[in-house]
């Protein structure tokens, strides 16, 4: 058994969380609330250092007064908590939504649309390439929604659905490994660091 306080704290918290697997209970609810609180507190600490380095210091030390604009917008976000000021939070939100949508859009056109199409232009000389090219086309046609129904389209999109199922199967198989990894990690901590069972 470990004699370290930290190890004991983490082991007991883990057990309280795992008790949920048996039944929802008060210990689980307690650690769940604690976790929410710690996470939010952590977020504040990190956000604070961002604000200091990116806004406070440049404004006070370098005189970059125009940075007051994003600071004011940041403060306006909190308007949503006051009924009469609720409308103010729409301005920073609009900025976040507008820039965010544009930044995702421009990258998506080049890297996800053009580059991916280019990479799919392959010589149809091997079974593998044939599967990639035809498969991609079939899956794309599964996501045509408004074209008039015809036999060719519906049979191509059925094949697309089959390919999607194989894709999902692969992700499922992978997912199993990922989730097992996480529980192994917990067991390694519990039985390695707390009870010294794993060497």
């Amino acid at each position, binding site marked *: 058994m470990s004699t370290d306080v930290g190890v004991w704290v983490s082991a007991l918290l883990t057990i309280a969380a795992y008790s949920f*697997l*048996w039944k929802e209970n008060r210990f689980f609810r307690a650690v769940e609330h604690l976790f929410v609180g710690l996470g939010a507190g*952590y*977020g504040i600490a*990190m*956000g604070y*250092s*961002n604000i*200091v*380095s*990116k806004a406070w*210091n*440049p404004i006070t030390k370098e005189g970059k007064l125009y940075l007051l604009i994003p600071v004011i917008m940041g403060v306006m976000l909190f308007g949503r908590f006051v009924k009469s000021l609720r409308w103010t939070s729409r301005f920073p939100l609009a900025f*976040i939504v507008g*820039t*965010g949508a544009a*930044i*995702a859009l*421009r*990258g*998506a056109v*080049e*890297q*996800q649309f053009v*580059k*991916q199409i*280019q*990479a799919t232009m392959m010589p149809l000389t091997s079974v593998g390439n044939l599967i*990639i090219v035809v498969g991609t086309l079939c899956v794309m046609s599964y996501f045509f929604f408004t074209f008039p129904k015809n036999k060719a389209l519906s049979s191509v999109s059925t094949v697309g659905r089959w390919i999607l199922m194989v*894709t999902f199967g*692969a*992700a499922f198989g*992978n*997912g*199993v*490994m*990922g989730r*097992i*990894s*996480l*529980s*192994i*990690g*917990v*067991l*390694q901590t519990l*039985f*390695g660091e707390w009870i010294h*069972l*794993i*060497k």
Partner: protein
Amino acid sequence: MKALLWLGNVDRRILYLLMGFVLLVPLVKPMGLPISVSEYTENVYNEIEKLSPGDRVFLDFNYTPGSIAELQAQADSITKHLLRKGVKVIAICFSPEGAMIADDTLNRIYGGAGKVYGEDYCHLGYLAGGETAQGAFIRDPLKACPQDFYGTPSSSLPICKGLSNGKDVQALIYFTTGYTAEWIRQAGPLGVPIIAGVITVLGPAQEAFVQSGQLKGLLVGMRGGAEYEIIMDEPGSAAAAMDAQSLGHLLFILFIIFGNASYFIQKKYGKKPVGGGRSHEY
């Protein structure tokens, strides 16, 4: 026959106990099944081998403590490899919790080897704003991060000298629980070689970027970490966990078989099968 039907309806708590037990036994008493190294992991290794001493790379730790089991082995091994190559590392995070993980990893590996902070490695901390922040960072890292994790002006760090955009580093390596195409969208246009380490569930969706060459290398989950430990000849926690992985997978497959066997028997004898989506007959 009755036994098979019973096997199709085991209480979930028994399953949970079984799984805990099956995972624990090989951790306590390893079986030592061989782990082969995949082509993907070799590609990542070769890609890092191409770097020369003095080159700089960005390391992005985009994961929370919940996924340490999946990604820490990858992060540790790659960092060790970079250390061996004498490459300089600049860490950055776009998830708040990643900042502490990056801090621990670099101090343990680079600091532990006697490398100098600010000279051989540095940690620029957490940057809020998701993809918008990633875009800002790759275009002008020092403008995006005027201070490092400890509050030192980043332009005063020797390692950041002459760092005006993403083209000034030789690779971008990220470990993530959540990105799908974000870095490819933001760093791809600059032509920085990108290497990704992702949690296992995200693996399949990245294939499209590997084949197109937008990703220069891909490590997937704990297995990827274990393979990298093997290739580096420093087996660690991930390699040790692979036996448990094997038994865990067998348990999954075994119970999927049990479930299917009892499903088909019930169907054959005209009973309403237990379980199975889309089988709700009226």
